[in-house]
């Protein structure tokens, strides 16, 4: 059972990194970025492509770097594509991101192949550590540690810096921010780019757990959506809490409640939505979306 909990933490970290960007974009623009899963996939395949020849710290870090850059580019591109649709309905924006996501994910499969690929952990982290007598991949422990650091870093960024204040203000009341003379479009572009960079990073870091294969984008997108909705739109703290919760649901929950396993994820989401529609840490918007 301890193993499940630790696994849940590891998955939770990957989900948090993935969901944080999605939550901010959603909270800020009411845009459901349905391409987010595809960006994760880009990161996963980047890791596969760069480490296929042989895993080393060089290739591992390179794949992180490349993924971050690709994520930012895609994010900026998406922001640009969504901008002319600002006055259109949310469905139109969602359709656009869905289309981009499809093109991306199918494009990847076309470029690579439709096999399932595993990615190895970098040297030093590819061994195991003993947890309650069983071997446990060291990489995942490192992942949890990294996740904590990143969460702390993001928290500081959002809560303690001016940039963060700007982001939070734009999420809460975009009109007001513009009235104060800030070009909220730049904030949007930045958040979109940053959010997608995080998604790609999640893809690299999670590739040791989930690998790289077609269809992964859809599964991961659904998880991220659930995390974001449970956690509350536009909230990093919510994304963290939601990710940790879902991480446990996916591991501990499935192990303990085996007959209900496939229903747990969405059952939990439905429950949270009914009890606390704003999500665990949802932010109040000053004006209607």
């Amino acid at each position: 059972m301890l193993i499940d909990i630790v696994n849940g933490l590891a998955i939770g970290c990957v989900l948090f990194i993935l969901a944080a960007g999605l939550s901010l974009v959603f909270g800020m623009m009411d845009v459901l970025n349905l391409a987010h899963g595809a960006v994760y996939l880009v990161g996963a395949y980047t890791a596969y492509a760069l480490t296929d020849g042989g895993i080393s710290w060089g290739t591992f870090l390179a794949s992180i770097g490349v993924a971050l850059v690709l994520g930012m580019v895609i994010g900026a591109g998406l922001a640009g594509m969504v901008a002319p649709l600002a006055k259109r309905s949310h469905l139109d924006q969602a359709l656009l991101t869905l289309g981009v996501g499809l093109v991306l994910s199918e494009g990847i499969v076309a470029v690579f192949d439709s096999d399932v690929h595993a990615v190895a952990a970098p040297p030093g982290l590819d061994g195991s550590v003993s947890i309650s007598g069983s071997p446990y991949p060291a990489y995942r422990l490192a992942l949890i540690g990294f996740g904590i650091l990143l969460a702390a870093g993001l928290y500081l960024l959002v809560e303690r810096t001016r940039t963060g204040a700007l982001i939070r203000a734009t999420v809460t009341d975009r009109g007001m921010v513009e009235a104060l003379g800030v070009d909220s479009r730049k904030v949007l572009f930045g958040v979109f780019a940053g959010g997608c960079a995080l998604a790609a990073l999640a893809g690299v870091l999670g590739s040791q757990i989930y690998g790289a294969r077609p269809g992964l984008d859809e599964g991961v997108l659904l998880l991220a959506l659930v995390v974001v909705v449970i956690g509350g739109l536009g909230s990093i703290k919510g994304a963290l809490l939601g990710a940790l919760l879902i991480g446990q649901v996916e591991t501990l929950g499935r192990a303990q409640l085996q007959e209900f396993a496939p229903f747990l994820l969405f059952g939990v989401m439905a429950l949270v939505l009914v009890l606390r529609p704003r999500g665990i840490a949802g932010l109040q918007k000053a004006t209607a979306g």
Partner: protein
Amino acid sequence: MTSVQTTTAIATEDPPVDRDGMVDRRKTAPVAGAVLVLLALAPFVLDPNQLNTLGRILYYGLLAAALDLLVGVVGLPSLAAAAYFAIGAYTAGLLARDVTTFAPALLLAAGAAGGIGALASGWVAVRSRGIFFLMLTLAIGEIVFQLTQSAEGLTGGSNGLYGIPAQELGSVTLGGAASKYWWVLTGAAIGFGLVWAVARSSFGLTLRGIRDNEERMRAIGYPTLRCTYAAYVISGAVAGMAGSLLAAQQQIVTPADAGFGTAVLALVAVIIGGAGTLWGPVLGAAVVILARDEIGQSLDGHGPLLLGAVFIVSVYLLPQGIAGALLGRRHRPGAAR
């Protein structure tokens, strides 16, 4: 806020065009009649494979129209349509195997099953709006999807329900491509007529009022929750009817019919076709199916790539959907949500 338009915006010579591009009654009947006749002649012109595709377009089109009642008329984008579609399909399949193959009975039973499914699951969803409603319907869809996979005794699990006998209409067995197609056309026409009648009735006006300003509707005296719930159930019932047509044509039902992919397909068909028009989404379904299945096949199985490109292009070039483009300047779209 739009600027004040002059009265030239009002059609004084032309018959008034309703909002949502629902063309005036005087023009609808002949057009609908012509379309039905053309569709009925299809088996004399198309080969069995093409007929099969057209049949698929028809029942997915019906699904999209049923969904449009929620999305376009009430203003509630939903991802649960596939769930009720599949419930109807499985119901029709199981009844055909064990009870009766009389097609109209299966159509009705599937509709009832879809409606009951919507009744049971919708009461939670209709209390929310916007993204929360969307996510709750997503949850409903995913839960039904999981159920179709785990209730193996009933649904055949992940292999699906296969070996469904052909449906029949008294002495006529719907076994060949043409007879199957004609039944699908009939069923789709009935289902579509139902949704159309609802949308054109005073209840339909009520729903559009709720879409535009729910708070105001309450102030006028409408129990808006009950109204949206009723619309949700009607939408689910017609989706179930579409499911029986799938069972009739394919004679196999799989969990994928309840899955996220089908739900998204239906919603996309509505958006591309033009939400609120009811007939637009049918065209949207045609586009999606042709792009993904037909043309997509020739792209080495990379149909989704073409589909994604179609989505992107249609968002920019068809802001009002296909229906809006076809209706041109006389179309005044429903309030965007």
